[in-house]
């Protein structure tokens, strides 16, 4: 998986170590550690995973395996305004795929990618538990319901100058 090479600052390494310590450096807490670390850094670059593997005393391949298994975890920095399109059953049958295609077309990126200016990223999720609002799109903290592909342009416009 392509990932931007970064060098972690000492302080950042310490932050990761502290998170691991909160979970007693237990390998069984890997998902919680990854969750917390991603909320701190916004994503999980390989350098971060190396520290986590060391701290939890588990293989790097396993950590990478878990990071790539769960769609919530990402190895590329997410955009300032991350767009999550729900592709759960209800959203899917009500046209979520078309909505997703429209986001991809407008932003010229694929799922899992971030626009060059770092503003937007697209992710697809499986069911956010708001099936009554299907199809659902979440941008940052804001939820949009009954979205159609025609709405995509206006949604993006909201964030243009933010």
């Amino acid at each position, binding site marked *: 998986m392509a*990932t931007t090479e970064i060098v972690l600052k000492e302080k950042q390494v310490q932050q990761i170590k502290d998170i691991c310590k909160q979970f007693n450096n237990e390998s069984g807490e890997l998902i919680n550690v990854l969750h917390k670390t991603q909320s701190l850094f916004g994503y999980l670059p390989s350098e971060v995973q190396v520290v986590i*593997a060391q701290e939890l005393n588990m*293989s*790097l*391949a396993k950590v*990478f*395996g878990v990071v*790539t*298994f769960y*769609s919530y975890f990402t190895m590329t920095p997410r955009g300032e305004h991350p767009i999550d399109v729900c592709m759960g059953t209800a959203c899917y049958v009500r046209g979520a795929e078309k909505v997703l295609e429209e986001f991809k077309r407008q932003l010229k990126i694929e799922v899992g990618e971030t626009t060059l200016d770092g503003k937007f990223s697209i992710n697809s999720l499986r069911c956010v538990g708001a099936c009554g609002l299907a199809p659902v799109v979440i941008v940052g903290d804001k939820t949009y319901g009954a979205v159609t592909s025609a709405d995509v342009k206006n949604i993006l416009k909201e964030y243009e100058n933010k």
Partner: protein
Amino acid sequence: MELIKVTIDNKVVEVEKGTTILGAAKKVNVDIPTLCHFKLHDMNIENKPGGCRICVVEVDGRKNLAPACATDCTEGMVIKSHSVRVINARKTVMELILSDHPFECLVCAKSGTCDLQSLAQQLGIRKIHFEGKKSSYRLDTSPSIIREMNKCIMCRRCEMMCNKVQTVGALSAINRGFDSVVSTAFEMNLKNSTCTYCGQCVSVCPTGALTEVDDTARIIRALADPSKTVIVQTAPAVRVALGEEFGMEPGTIVTGKMVAALRRIGFDQVFDTDFAADLTIMEEGSELLNRLGKHLAGDKTVKLPMLTSCCPAWVNFFEKQFPDMLDIPSTAKSPQQMFGAIAKTYLADKMGIKREDLVVVSVMPCLAKKYEAQRDEFKTNGNPDVDFSISTRELAHLIKQTIRDFDSLPDEDFDRPMGESTGAGVIFGTTGGVIEAAVRSAYELHTHKKLPRLNFEELRGLEGIREATIDFDGLPIKIGIAHGLGNARKLLEDIRAGRSHFHAIEIMSCPGGCIGGGGQPLHHGHSSIIKARQAAIYKEDAGKAIRKSHENPDIIKLYDEFLGTPLGEKSHHLLHTEYFNRKK
């Protein structure tokens, strides 16, 4: 122990609670096909992710089919192992697996020994009714192992071996759904990962996804070059397994036929790694006595226990995972490398040729030996001490390419001087053998008394970790033995924590030692094969006229004519090495 009764194909069987349907079926000789499931009986090695669904059976009163490998029997269960529904389901499952598999059987390295191929035949698959996306992964080559993940069926046997048994942690399942595959961290090349090249992943892979680097073509080219003298050395574990590739019973000893075959293939001289194993004992045994003497005299700079160092995957393991303990293993090179170092100096001089014109080939039960032969510290001016290392499987291919009737070859003897060996050299091929060989010599060198016995049963067996105390004429020597890197890790962690009470520890990476090596004929999960090879090793030892390394006449001559004394200056230069921190 609670017993329960189940009925399989109208046969009633009583089994212990907790037995799987597959286990119960075995008891009444009902054959349920499996693919992802893998078990080495008595060796605590099992893979049952229940993922492939080939072993499904029909259970009365249950709506869906049950995977036999991952479903426990319950009281009164009635099972049908080959109803129409079951057979159709298995065929469908197989076709779905094959729909994402390259049809390269004719040119695949695993053809003929492939579990997937033989199962497809067994199930009578003649057409794939599904057409869909095909996986596409780049080929990953390393000095020892090739990963061709387009052929991976996600049985995860390799992942189990790498993580549970070996605790190497190079491989893991990554991604999900169609994209899931077994890979390294960040999909890096195997050679940059924590891989030790033990090859246990290769030895359990049911398809051609994991194979060894094939060096046979390079050897054929070297043999055809008139400017080169090509010699070969064969490791002890090869002679007790090679016969399997030619349909012989496991445990058949084919030493003589192997030598004859190698001569007919065109090797100028056929030698024995066992000779170098005897040499290893001279150096390693002397080192142990030296360290022991200093330690007992109170020298705090000398560390004990001393660990053996002849297993190349083990060396890779501690260089990558225990770089703080590089001063604990013996500095003695492995027999393969000792052979190369002596061949390209002593022997080349005797033969009157330059080292560049001498090609040294080794036949090993091992894939890590390929990497070992390529290490920079084992080269002189870029010329390696061992030019090519091939596995037992590759030797079988080489023989099949050149000779038609291996079975009817006469028994021939190794050439001298580097073909003379003792029973101590032979037992290097099994777990417990190196330390037994070391004890046989170290005892006599230390006590200057004749050993009262030659067989040390307390050092033998297949338990993952064993220990024994050997009385060196009043001095109790505590010995530890581990095979499988997961077991080695336990002993290493004990040493690191100061809990170890051993003087010497033997470590071999592969379950069973070299007899179960990553380059051996595939055992397909039959631990009886590994046991038969082990019995053959001890039989070969028992049949040898000389069974102590220090009594090998050609070894004595080598020290007289060339090396001087064990641990002497020349020995130090040619037969010892150093270790490097390779942690990334």
